[in-house]
């Protein structure tokens, strides 16, 4: 295992510490328990927006803390959801009295820990709403699974719900916008290589030189199936088709197209994928109104990408365009 780290067990603490130093104008880092808040939290009268989950997906979530997006991020150990005793004080820190929305990716661990934290917060008089993100079409949402996972779409939920909170929407409205984004976004991913969890020390799965994993999540878990390596256009089609079909994208639809790197794939390759995805989407008669290309929801140094499509309406587009000022997404300010 080759990593730019000191102690595998100190990775998250040291990284968050460095993040706080680099972005001291934007965020404040609470070391014990570990969470990150907007420098100016709680923002008076504003609904608080909090997200969190295992570490290893950077810039998610800390990179999205700031004006127009999250008020707090709560990072767990690598690929391990945070605990209620991190989530609760972070919730308290960003509640201005208007309540707090938890954006939770749909994994058993995240759901259980946020559930407990929300109960404890409610017991202390803080109103909490939870938006569950489950955009991964690789997983069937059935009795035989833990349900669809929350993956790349999370960043879109955070941006748009964040803009709703920033414009002054109340607690239920912010949660409703978040849910609307979630129900209009689908994602599917591919891995060309595994990643190595620092404390584990060996790659999260084994792939031959000519194999790729289709339908991966963001925790280095193997995907739905291994297939032989294909070219970028073919892979793009394999990811995009289920996304467009599940969403029922049809002629006249307006969409945001998001090609997300898993951390170890060069930007140049993401644009090759974007090129094909934009063409296929246009061939369906849909209009790509907004785009996002880059490493936003990653799995350490995994090579691969995911493609997300979000069906837009005028309100969602407006909220997407609204000013945002975070370490990893910034415009309008």
């Amino acid at each position, binding site marked *: 295992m080759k990593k730019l780290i000191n102690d595998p067990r100190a990775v998250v603490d040291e990284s968050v510490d460095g993040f706080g130093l680099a972005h001291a104008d934007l965020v404040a880092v609470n070391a014990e328990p570990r969470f990150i808040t907007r420098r100016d939290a709680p923002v008076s009268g504003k609904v608080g927006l909090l997200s969190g989950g295992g570490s290893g997906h950077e810039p998610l979530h800390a990179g999205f803390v700031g004006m127009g997006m999250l008020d707090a991020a709560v990072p767990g150990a690598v*690929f*391990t959801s945070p*605990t209620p*005793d991190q989530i609760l004080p972070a919730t308290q820190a960003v509640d201005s009295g208007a309540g707090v929305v938890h954006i939770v990716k749909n994994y058993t*661990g995240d759901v259980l*820990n946020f559930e407990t934290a929300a109960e404890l917060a409610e017991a202390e008089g803080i109103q909490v709403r939870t938006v569950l993100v489950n955009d991964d079409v690789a997983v069937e949402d059935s009795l035989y699974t*833990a349900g669809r996972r929350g993956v790349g779409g999370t960043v879109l939920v955070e941006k748009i719900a964040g803009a709703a909170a920033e414009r002054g929407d109340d607690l239920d409205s912010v949660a409703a916008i978040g849910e609307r984004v979630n129900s209009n976004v689908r994602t599917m991913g591919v891995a060309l290589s595994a990643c190595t969890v620092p404390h584990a020390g060996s790659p999260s799965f084994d792939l031959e030189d000519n194999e790729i994993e289709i339908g991966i999540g963001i*925790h280095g878990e193997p995907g*739905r199936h291994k297939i032989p390596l294909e070219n970028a256009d073919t892979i793009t089609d394999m990811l995009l088709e289920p996304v467009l079909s599940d969403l029922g994208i049809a002629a006249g639809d307006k969409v945001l197209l998001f090609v997300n790197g898993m951390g170890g794939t060069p930007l140049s390759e993401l644009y090759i994928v974007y090129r094909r995805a934009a063409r296929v989407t246009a061939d369906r008669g849909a209009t790509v109104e907004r785009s996002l290309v880059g490493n936003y929801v990653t799995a350490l140094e995994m090579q691969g990408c995911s493609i997300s499509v979000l069906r837009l309406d005028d309100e969602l587009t407006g909220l997407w365009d609204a000013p945002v000022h975070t370490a990893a997404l910034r415009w309008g300010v």
Partner: protein
Amino acid sequence: MVLDANWAVKWLTLCAQAMAENRVWLIELDRAIGDSDHGENMDRGFQAVLDKLAEVPPETPGAALKLTAMTLISKVGGAAGPLYGTAFLRAAASLGDTVEVEPAAFAGALLAARDGIVARGKAEPGDKTMVDAWTPAAEAAVAAAADGAGSVLEVLVAAAEAAEAGAAATDPMVARKGRASYLGERSAGHRDPGAASSALILRAAVGAAA
């Protein structure tokens, strides 16, 4: 041998030892069908339990288990943290202030733990989760205690053996809960990490009484 606070502390100490020793194995199991963190999570959690036990030595087995529950909830995270936390919390509640736990009460605590896991995680037997270790363990303990003949040690051994058999029985299962369920059929042929750690915990209970 009585199941008193000393036994409980020894049990939890042996748990911590087992998690440290089996950390890599549990990571390997989770690597195959999950996200490579179960061994790290359990090791971190039980090391924290050791620290807590040293700070405030508990006066009853129930108090020891409650402290364990709170520590696991605050230190483990992931799926295992809340599930084990609930298990130990329910077991503690079931034992109440008892100073010396009778075999039947121990079996009752295991049942309560199992019910807690099911209540939180909604998994059924056969879903390839820790429930597949706790269910046979609790049932075996109840059966051994119900005979009346069962000594303390016999009940503990029955639970441990049933948990180990239950964990081994997860090998061929296709997961329907937790992270392994994303793999569908590909999850078959691997042991569930949470069932494996559950068997280690129940085996430690025997060691503490031996």
